[in-house]
């Protein structure tokens, strides 16, 4: 057990204190957690020295939960209660899920996202993912000896808004402070680029258990700029297993399988796939619960044939991303391979032939994403060391738009826009005297609303009656650095403040998250009140630290009086945070935020001036005049 450092009241601990932050690769098949320790990025192993945590969660009758290898061992015995590859269901309705018949779960259709009926009750994929994250959080805290200030969690670049929001909700449920959602291929590029000091245009080909991403990045002087991304959020190693599974059924002419037998054959299929990485053929044998025997040999040739369409599908996405980036395969300086499924020889060969160069495999494809995420977490938590200066500029994978007349989509923010991004569009009324307007937000590339994913619907009410076409309704989209969207609408002409900000409909409401938190607390026999108080205290400390750091670096931007007021607000928050009244802590935080609002603006101004250092505004104006002359 590590010793806790206690600072004098009113004083923070050492300013260079290393903050505990982790990167988490929440994978379809396996998950990992990594951190930067004494300048080295390490994957944190479990107590048995194993780096991977199988992304498997098993629910027992008495509400007990097993995660990882333990749960994995039970998957063919207790298939219905043992959830594997839950990532495929994140932010997805029942109709979205491919190969549903081969998945041995009891799905319940629910608005926005499916749920799974288990012996411990109905579970949302968000809750299942939260169990995996909790296990990783516990591993990290035990290994690092303290509370985490935050985590960077990776998501497939091609995840849409629903899937990203679901991931963030899962982290919240697991009690993690999400510093950033980071795209998996971008994380891999960081790990690779920083390790090799690369410059130029790189492609990251990331074939995971259930998702495929391709990203084209420009690396230059510590800036990682994503030029384009593409992929398929429902294509991965699992699909290669499924092709083998179908081949087994076809070859053995089996009657309909029980869920346990289906799971058993899927496991055999996966084992055969892995075996073929190093061998020319793989034996497949199994005894089913019906007494039937399966005894087959899968050759490399057959495997390549039955999966060729999957391999081609990935290459089509690669072509599209290259085109979006305005590049051809000859512009690419290197291709980084990520994800366990890229171990398949036919994938290595196909990618090598496409780019006419050997793919880069020098980092472990299972670990590279977690390592990149840990590096980013370390930077975001404020542990920036000298020379450790780099920045990510990422994009949104899918266009965002609005439904217009006739079920057509008007794109507001096109795919591959660098985030954060905002865009406003004006609309008007269709009928005389119209006082409300329905706004329907969609994501996707197709022209018809019905072919895109519906993200949110809301109504703008209280528009004063006017003739058709006279109202000016401005709809603003804002995508933040996590790739998450918020939408606001406002009627412009009358000054009527009819404005609304929505959280897309599939996301969990704050109440739902709170009630799930409460449920999980009851199981853990914890106290929800204590937990909430603790969180508020941690938040307060975080804020105090941020303001103190700002005072140290930019204190001269404040007059002595202003500085005194900020100091007073800090002292007040500090003493309130020692107490047990959560509401008072929140109020004191609001006070400190209000007291530092101008300070924040001045600091930002200073930052921007810094970017102009070496070139004065006069000089710029001078060149402008010369150019116009």
């Amino acid at each position, binding site marked *: 057990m590590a010793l806790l450092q206690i600072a004098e009241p009113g004083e923070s601990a050492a300013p260079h204190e290393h903050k505990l932050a982790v990167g988490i690769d929440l994978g379809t098949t396996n998950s990992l957690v990594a951190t930067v320790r004494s300048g080295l990025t390490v994957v944190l192993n479990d107590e048995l020295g194993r780096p991977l945590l199988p992304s498997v969660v098993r629910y027992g009758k008495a509400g007990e939960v097993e995660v990882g290898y333990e749960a994995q061992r039970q998957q063919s015995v207790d298939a219905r209660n043992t959830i594997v590859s839950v990532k495929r269901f994140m932010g997805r309705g029942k109709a979205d899920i491919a190969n549903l018949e081969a998945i041995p779960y009891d799905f319940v259709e629910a608005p926005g996202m499916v749920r799974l009926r288990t012996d411990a009750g109905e579970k949302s994929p968000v809750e299942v993912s939260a169990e995996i994250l909790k296990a990783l959080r516990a591993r990290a805290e035990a290994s690092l000896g303290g509370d985490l200030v935050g985590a960077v969690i990776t998501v497939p670049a091609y995840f849409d808004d629903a899937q990203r929001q679901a991931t963030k909700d899962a982290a919240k449920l697991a009690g993690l402070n999400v510093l950033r959602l980071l795209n998996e291929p971008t994380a891999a590029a960081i790990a690779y680029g920083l390790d090799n000091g690369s410059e130029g245009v790189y492609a990251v080909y990331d074939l995971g258990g259930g998702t495929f991403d391709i990203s084209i990045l420009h690396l230059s002087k510590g800036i990682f700029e994503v030029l384009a991304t593409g992929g398929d959020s429902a294509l991965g190693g699992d699909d290669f297993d499924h092709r083998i599974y179908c081949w087994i059924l076809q070859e053995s002419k089996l009657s309909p399988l029980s869920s346990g037998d289906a799971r058993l054959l899927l496991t055999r299929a996966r084992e055969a796939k892995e075996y073929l990485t190093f061998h020319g053929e793989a034996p497949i044998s199994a005894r089913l619960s019906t007494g039937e025997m399966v005894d087959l040999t899968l050759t490399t040739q057959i495997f390549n044939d039955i999966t060729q369409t999957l391999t081609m599908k990935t290459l089509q996405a690669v072509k599209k991303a290259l*085109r979006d980036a305005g590049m051809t395969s000859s512009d690419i300086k290197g291709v980084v391979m990520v994800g366990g499924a890229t171990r398949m020889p036919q994938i290595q060969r196909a990618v090598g032939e496409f780019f006419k160069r050997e793919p880069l495999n020098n980092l472990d494809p299972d670990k590279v994403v977690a390592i990149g995420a840990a590096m980013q977490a370390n930077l975001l938590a404020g542990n920036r060391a000298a020379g450790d200066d780099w*920045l990510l500029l990422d994009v949104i994978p899918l266009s965002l738009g609005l439904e217009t007349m006739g079920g057509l989509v008007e794109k507001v923010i096109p795919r591959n826009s660098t985030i954060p991004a905002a865009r406003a569009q004006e609309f008007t009324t269709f009928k005389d005297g119209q006082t409300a307007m329905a706004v329907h937000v969609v994501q996707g590339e197709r022209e018809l609303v019905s072919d895109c994913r519906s993200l949110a619907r809301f109504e703008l009410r209280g528009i004063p009656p006017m003739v058709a076409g006279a109202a000016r309704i401005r709809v603003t989209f804002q995508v933040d*650095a996590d790739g998450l969207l918020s939408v606001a609408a406002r009627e412009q002409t009358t000054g009527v403040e009819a404005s609304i900000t929505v959280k897309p409909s599939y996301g969990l409401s704050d109440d739902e998250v709170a009630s799930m938190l409460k449920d999980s607390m009851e199981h853990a026999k914890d106290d929800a009140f204590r937990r909430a108080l603790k969180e508020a205290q941690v938040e307060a400390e975080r804020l105090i630290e941020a303001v103190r750091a700002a005072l140290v670096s930019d204190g001269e931007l404040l007059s002595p009086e202003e500085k005194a007021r900020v100091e007073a607000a800090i002292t007040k928050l500090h003493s309130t945070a020692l107490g047990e009244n959560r509401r008072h802590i929140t109020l004191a935080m609001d006070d400190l935020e209000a007291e530092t609002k101008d300070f924040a603006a001045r600091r930002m101004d200073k930052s921007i001036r810094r*970017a102009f250092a070496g070139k004065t505004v006069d000089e710029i104006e001078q060149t402008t005049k010369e150019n116009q002359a």
Partner: protein
Amino acid sequence: MDFNADHFTLMGLPRAFRIDTAALDKRYRELQAEVHPDRFAHAGDAEKRLSLQWATKVNEAYQTLKKPLPRAKYLLHLADHDVGAENNTAMPADFLMEQMEWREGVAEARSAGNHHELEHLHHRLGEQMRSAYDELGDLFDNAPDYATAADRVRRLMFLEKLLHEIDDAIVALEEE
């Protein structure tokens, strides 16, 4: 720096159509290195909000100036010359005729599965657009003539759309 400064001022560039794109790239990266939300992940809410607003603005400025068509539209906007794309779509008959010929050519190549012809059309159109953009440089920077520039911008909007359609046709063929 004023939050309402125009994109050229923000990017430290003279207000012109012909710009130093290397300088634009450099300034963009320098600005993002200062204002990006990743720099404020551990800051208070007020700073996070400001950083989001500034980073969004810097991205918008960069996207607007980086490509010639949005840059030209923006210059017209700054000069209070509306492109008038919504209410002034009446283009000269010969231009529209030419457009129809282009479109027929693309449709033919597409249905014949003639990949090579599509690439050829793409190349030809690209050349035509390059000389149109050269002309725009003169209309904005040498002897400013915003009315003519607005007309050329409207034409280029058609051509950009056409180029996009050829791209789509090529992708569609590749996916078949």
